[in-house]
């Protein structure tokens, strides 16, 4: 029951095609490769006008429910402290003060910079390293390949809590606790989810192309770097965007590794604002609200820039949990 090897109409490879990998955890194979194109088709079946009208009305109502928290948050960020909780759609007293204040109340600019650094390093390294490994699994044939790939997928099932403490001790031993390094350096070694995603894509490329390049004397690395990678841009984009989202929103690691306010990432910083100004603290909710907006906006922008990659990526592989 493997739905792993995407059957694209590929010019039949000279050698027998890749063997179906045995021993894959079933959860990883639970999603058959969906035809993402299907998502782009409008409604397929001719449905009655009544059905469509009902669907539109229901969707419009639900859409309001889903969007309103954003609207509420943005609106609250333009309200003075006394009015944050008044639930008005349009602020009674419209003020930009919070957006001026927030930078003074907290080193938010520094937090944003830290997060950008970590996000860029993490997503670029994980994309390149995962692509390398995925290529190793997709192109080469060696004994034990299926079992090894099964092991890659099996690591996806391992809860982070099991390795969390020893990994912390490793970074502690290297004197990296309190720095940004532990938040991204693990990505130098690839990540199972992306290896899976990229391998899928590589398997769909015509093998003859690479064989021909090899015959013409290209090195293994050149075949990967100059031919396979450029062909794989869509999947690389998905990887990059998924990781940007994962790193930008990562709280647990930041809680474990970051100690000084100056080194905080945005999620960690926002948490510290909730601690300082929330119900247990000084009741500056307008600052928390404004910082939340500033934290969220980059993700919204990323979504609109890379909507297609995100939707396709989610549809074909699920989202990295």
């Amino acid at each position: 029951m493997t739905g792993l090897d995407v059957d694209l109409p590929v010019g039949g490879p000279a050698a027998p095609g890749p063997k179906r990998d045995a021993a894959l955890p079933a959860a990883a194979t639970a999603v058959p490769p969906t035809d993402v194109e299907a998502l782009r088709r409008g409604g397929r079946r001719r449905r009655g006008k009544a059905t469509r009208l009902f669907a539109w009305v229901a969707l419009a109502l639900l859409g309001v429910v889903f969007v309103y928290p954003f609207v509420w948050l943005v609106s609250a960020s333009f309200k003075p402290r006394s009015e944050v909780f008044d639930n008005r759609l349009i602020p009674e007293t419209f003020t930009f003060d919070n957006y001026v204040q927030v930078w003074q109340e907290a080193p938010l600019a520094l937090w944003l910079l830290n997060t950008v650094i970590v996000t860029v390093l993490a997503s670029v390294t994980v994309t390149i390293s995962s692509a390398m490994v995925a290529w190793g699994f997709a192109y080469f044939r060696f004994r034990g390949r299926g079992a090894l790939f099964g092991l890659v997928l099996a690591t996806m099932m391992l809860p982070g809590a099991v390795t969390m403490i020893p990994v912390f001790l490793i970074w502690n031993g290297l004197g990296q606790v309190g720095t940004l390094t532990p938040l991204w350096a693990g990505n130098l070694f690839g990540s199972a989810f992306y290896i899976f995603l990229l391998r899928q894509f590589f398997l769909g490329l015509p093998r003859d192309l690479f064989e021909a390049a090899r015959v013409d004397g290209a090195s293994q690395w050149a075949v990967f770097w100059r031919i396979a990678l450029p062909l794989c841009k869509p999947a690389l984009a998905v990887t990059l965007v998924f990781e940007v989202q994962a790193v930008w929103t990562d709280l647990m690691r930041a809680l474990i590794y970051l100690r000084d306010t100056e080194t905080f990432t945005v999620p960690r910083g926002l948490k510290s604002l909730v601690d300082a100004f929330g119900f247990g603290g000084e009741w500056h909710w307008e600052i928390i609200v404004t910082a939340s907006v500033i934290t969220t906006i980059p993700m919204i922008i990323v979504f609109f820039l890379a909507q297609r990659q995100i939707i396709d990526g989610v549809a074909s592989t699920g989202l990295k949990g």
Partner: protein
Amino acid sequence: MTSTASRVGGGARQRPSDARQERERSRRRASRRNVRSALLFLSPWLIGFLVFTAWPMIYSAYLSLTDYDVINDPEFVGLANYAEMATDPKILLALGNTAFFTVVQVPLYVLVSLALALLLDRAGRASSFFRTVFFLPKMTPPVAVGVLFLLLFNGQNGLVNTVLGWFGIDGPAWTTDPAWVKPGLIFMSLWTVGASVIILLAALRNVPEQLYESAKLDGAGFWRTSMSVTLPMISPALFFIIIVNTIAGLQTFDEAYTAFFGAGNTTYSNDAALFYVIYLFQQAFEFLHMGYASAMAWGLFLVIMIVTAIQLIVSRRLVYYEGER
């Protein structure tokens, strides 16, 4: 024997067996080279696996049998940590909270995402717009979701209770009443169903048109078609969502931690939001009970494996995979 045989023209007078040996040898050489290249490409993962997965697993298994506070050397205590877990009331509390959250949240999550996907499937060209609307919350950092929870579900003047008030319902104190903290968090988590909606929508759109046509010819009504065509065809995707969300639910952390834990947060009834991974995190990084926390981690791993195994066994009977007899 060197490869004189491979000289052009030299092959004519050559004995066939020689040629075969030669080919065999060069193939073996090539495959050795091949394995070396493959290893080179796989090396990042191999190193990462050894350093960040295999070794940590072994080491945390060892730590779970010790008392360790990072400062002093680990002290071997045998199974004492596991014995202590069995009698630790907070473990029971955390397990209960986590079980409640997962058991209630996952079915709701699946139902809501299925309902939204079905609506989107029927919405024609408007579906891509609404798809975006439903997916956006998924992009919101969990910390911000935790903040939104505190604000929108505020008992006195939160938006949720205000809206409930319009319908004459006196909303509960979601963020302070222990009985309502978890339901509140569950409702908030339904805001981020976006990814599951997309997966189910793709699955729905992948159901071959012919199946619906033949169902129609056979005179099947909406209900019959749903049960005999739609549901079996999307069952792999449904199963995937159930498994992934169960595993995620058992490890829920971010939103609850943001809202109820951390520095100076004692004003809340946070016992109701003490999920297993939150307690594990506290034990490890707030109390520095690394041994105990390691034992807790292995307990969690065991629970996740058992739950997933049960789901897999059940799915064998319920999930329809194309291409299977």
